[in-house]
């Protein structure tokens, strides 16, 4: 399996001897180009033209984040998997409100199910999350896209409220972004932006068009299908990483910068990234394809299911944790 490269320090990426070098004050480091599938830059990273052309040739997207950890944009290689048919069908499923609602509802069902699984896991461990579970179970997902989105909003709201019961330290007041005002908000924002690019790079490997989405509005300047896919996996990947890091005291006050809002500092980012990456690589036996797949690959499977749905092969059923 190819791995993503994360860069949190400042430096220059250059091409030498047909591979990639990262150069900074500490020295030069050769990176095996054939082992990398995406590059995420959190520090100030310059790309030399040789490096960018090599990366585009190899089909490796480079994602840039600003100092707050927000996604800024990508250097996205020429789309190698092109299928007009899929894009046309995908768009038709968006423009027909009924067809769109079917997919959107299915996505929210997935979110609801995965959140409930996560909460029940903590209920078993003796955390008092029963009322939140009941709140979320009450949500009936139906109607048009606007109603489905308000369902989704309420589910997330109850879920974020339950954090105070699960986490041993740090308070979760309310979800706030740009800039996050508490440590937990900072962690959620950072984790979500990571998951967003992971989903994006999985979509890149399929025929789907990344900006035609169903739950989120296909806003300009954003690859909103990645948001759709990422939402299903947030409770499975991002929040579980956060709970682990906080409850095991792997992240403490010292790993945050308190400036305008609260943000992870470089050391904190590294700790988070390491844990996040380990989570993505965790494998699980898939009951249908009967082999072990990583959490990351589950996102790819989600894209394949969507393609089958829009082409009319097999109805889309969103990912629900089965373990």
């Amino acid at each position, binding site marked *: 399996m190819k791995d993503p490269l994360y860069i949190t320090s400042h430096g220059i990426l250059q091409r030498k*001897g047909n*591979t990639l070098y990262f150069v900074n004050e500490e020295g030069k480091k*050769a990176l095996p180009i*054939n*082992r990398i599938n995406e590059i995420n830059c959190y520090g100030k990273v310059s790309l030399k033209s040789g490096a960018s052309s090599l990366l585009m040739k190899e089909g490796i997207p480079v994602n840039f984040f600003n100092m707050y950890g927000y996604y800024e944009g990508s250097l996205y290689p020429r789309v190698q998997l092109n299928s007009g048919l899929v894009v046309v069908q995908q768009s038709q499923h968006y423009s027909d409100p009924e067809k769109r609602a079917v997919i959107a509802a299915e996505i929210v069902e997935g979110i609801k199910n995965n959140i409930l699984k996560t909460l029940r896991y903590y209920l078993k461990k003796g955390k008092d999350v029963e009322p939140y579970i009941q709140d979320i179970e009450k949500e009936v997902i139906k109607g048009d896209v606007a109603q489905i989105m308000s369902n989704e909003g309420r589910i997330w709201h109850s879920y974020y409220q339950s954090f105070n019961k699960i986490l041993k330290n740090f308070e979760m007041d309310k979800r706030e972004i740009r800039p996050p005002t508490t440590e937990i908000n900072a962690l959620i924002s950072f984790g979500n932006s990571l998951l967003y690019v992971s989903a994006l790079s999985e979509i890149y490997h399929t025929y789907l068009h990344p900006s035609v989405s169903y739950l989120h509005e296909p806003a300009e300047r954003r690859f909103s299908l990645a948001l759709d896919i990422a939402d299903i996996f947030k409770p499975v990947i991002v929040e579980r990483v956060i709970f682990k890091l906080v409850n095991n005291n792997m992240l403490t006050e010292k790993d945050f910068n308190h400036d305008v809002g609260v943000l992870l500092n470089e050391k904190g980012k590294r700790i988070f990234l390491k844990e996040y*990456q380990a989570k993505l690589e965790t494998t699980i036996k898939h009951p249908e394809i009967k082999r072990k797949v990583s959490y990351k690959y589950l996102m790819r499977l989600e894209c394949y299911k969507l393609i089958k749905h829009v082409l009319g092969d097999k109805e889309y059923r969103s990912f629900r944790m089965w373990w």
Partner: protein
Amino acid sequence: MYLLIVYDVDVNRVNKVNKFLKMYLHWRQNSVFEGEVSISQFKKLKSGLKDITNEDKDSILIYNLKDRKNFKLEVIGIEKNPIELIL
């Protein structure tokens, strides 16, 4: 599969082998490379090395460790190049 490659080649070809392997594996220290490859990459790697080197004079050892979990690395002295994809 997880590979450990150690080479001892003629001085004229040392740089060529080093450059070639850097595309696939992590450079550990002089003439030692390590890293995970897929089966197709392994084939490309072997045929590439055969093209560069002279099989009558050079020697390259490939330890195929199957999995990262099968061995434990201990370092005495300085570790020149830790394998990291979080920089």
